[in-house]
């Protein structure tokens, strides 16, 4: 089976404009979550990691004809542009796929005070995907994944599968989501938004903090494109709890099954996993379910982190941002601690990383879960010595 390599990436977040910048901020222990007082989003102040105006202006200035693009599309373009630069992957190659992951895309158009012309067309996710594809002159038709909070992870899994099946040689997977009144009010209506910066897996966790961000991961079946330490996407799986549309499984069994399938596909066992980058949204139910799945699959001693304390929950971008940080961690053999975590607050024993943990990272697991009962698991593996030049 074709190996699929992670050859280039970008994270565009309130913490920085490149993956490297982002990873540096994490190493400095900086979180993007702030108390936000934007009245256009919420009457009450709330905690979230949002782009400031300056960042958007910079983005706008850097994209020709940026007026033709929405903020959501500008984020995608800026992130894809960064990731493509020097990657050796050519959008004009019909063998290059473009996959866009998002949950709500241009939803803010719906909130606009003035009626937006051609609203239905402009708000459609495939429209944004076509605009981004057109900007880079992708030849292949772009693919949009919109599968709640596993969208980013599912984008990577889909890219991996399309390369393995021989349909494409490269896949550019870009994800983004913005926090609008629509999204925030929805999570607030669920009483799911934490009144303080979120605290994944913590005993006193009170819910999520939302975040904005975009990220791009470029996968390729061509190992010649690998730069630096080489990471492959070894396996991935998705599935459904078949339990409840807005609450996760009580047992974690389903996520456990998905994890095992991903491990099996990657040819590794639970013991081989050196680190787990969990979804860890800091809602009571999600973290409990994930902990149970980790426990059930025999990885209670594997260092687990959640990056939500730095980025907030970036929805459709989360799987991508967190996978890219995991890849960076593997390259530096460094587990990033779980910001906001103090004391374990789940009913099964798992090892939540609380401080920087320098350790050899050969195989890492990334999990994600979302509304609709969906789960995803991805395994990243460092290449065998034989692959490295």
């Amino acid at each position, binding site marked *: 089976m074709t190996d699929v390599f992670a050859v280039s990436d970008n994270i565009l977040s309130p913490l920085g404009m490149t993956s490297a910048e982002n990873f540096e901020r994490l190493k400095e222990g900086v979180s993007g979550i702030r108390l936000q007082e934007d009245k256009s989003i919420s009457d009450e102040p709330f905690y979230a990691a949002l782009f400031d105006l300056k960042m958007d202006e910079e983005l706008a200035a850097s994209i020709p004809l940026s007026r033709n693009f929405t903020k959501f599309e500008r984020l995608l373009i800026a992130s894809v542009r960064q990731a493509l630069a020097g990657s050796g992957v050519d959008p004009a190659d019909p063998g290059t796929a473009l996959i866009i992951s998002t949950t709500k*895309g241009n939803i803010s158009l*719906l909130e606009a005070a003035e009626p937006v012309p051609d609203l239905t067309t402009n708000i*459609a996710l495939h429209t944004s995907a076509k605009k981004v594809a057109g900007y880079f002159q992708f030849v292949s038709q772009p693919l949009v994944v*919109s599968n709640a909070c596993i969208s980013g992870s599912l984008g990577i899994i889909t890219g991996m599968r399309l390369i393995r099946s021989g*349909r494409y040689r490269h896949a550019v997977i870009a994800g983004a989501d913005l926090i609008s009144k629509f999204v925030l009010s929805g999570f607030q*209506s669920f009483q799911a938004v934490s009144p303080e910066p979120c605290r994944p897996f913590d005993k006193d966790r009170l819910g999520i903090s939302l975040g904005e961000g975009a990220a791009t991961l470029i996968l390729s079946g061509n190992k010649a494109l690998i730069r630096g330490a080489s990471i492959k996407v070894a396996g991935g799986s998705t599935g459904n*709890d078949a339990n409840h549309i807005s609450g996760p499984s009580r047992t974690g069994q389903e996520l456990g099954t998905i994890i095992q*399938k991903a491990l099996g596909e990657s040819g590794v066992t639970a013991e081989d996993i050196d680190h787990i980058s969990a979804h860890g949204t800091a809602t009571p139910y999600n973290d409990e379910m994930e902990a149970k799945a980790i426990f059930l699959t025999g990885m209670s001693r594997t260092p687990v982190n959640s990056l939500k304390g730095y980025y907030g929950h970036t929805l459709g971008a989360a799987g991508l941002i967190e996978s890219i940080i995991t890849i960076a961690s593997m390259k530096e053999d460094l587990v990033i601690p779980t910001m906001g975590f103090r004391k374990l607050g789940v009913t099964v024993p798992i090892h939540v990383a609380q401080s920087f943990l320098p350790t050899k990272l050969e195989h890492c697991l990334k999990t994600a879960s979302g*509304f*609709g009962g969906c789960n995803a698991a991805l395994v990243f593996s460092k290449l065998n010595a034989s692959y490295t030049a």
Partner: protein
Amino acid sequence: MNKEKYIISSCSISPAGVRKDGSLLYDRDDRPLGDFLLSLYTHSGMDYPKFYKMDRLSKLGWLASEILLKDATWIKELLPEEVGIVLSNAHASLDTDIKYLATTKEFPSPAVFVYTLPNIMIGEISIRNNFKGENGFFIFDRFDAGFLEQYVSCLIDEGHLRSCICGWVDVGEEDYRAALFLVAGDPPDSAAPPGHPGLLFTKTNMDKIFMEDTL
């Protein structure tokens, strides 16, 4: 060489009517979608109180899946994680997005908000049937049978799934259309109705059914 895969069954729902395996079950119906779905539900003698709280997109997909799976008793013999759902559409959850936004003027409704994601429909079908296999929701400007053939074949070939419900479920501003396909790699004997030609799972066959059924 990968094994052949078959469309064991198909179901379509649109204003042009409701069809199962090509034959018309319900006539053309141009009532507003909500009224039509409720009538289809009542008509079919289904009893699933959760139906009433679903949004229109989920109702549409769920009803199509119920009709699709009606005689597929063999599917119960598969493990939950061997059956997956891969769906697509053009409008994502726009229909409900608009409704949710209206509720925010007064009191944001969590019951509506949860349906502002198109994959909730996958959750509803999964809960009903205890399907726990692969999930995927993709957005295209139009029905892309080529992608479905590619992606679902890959899921079956690589051993992720033995059977998959795939297709298109879309609720636009004035229109709706659902076309679901029940796909399996090695259909048990009981799967194919007598005289069923064993339609191959191909882009061409899906396109043909999609066009003939819903236009």
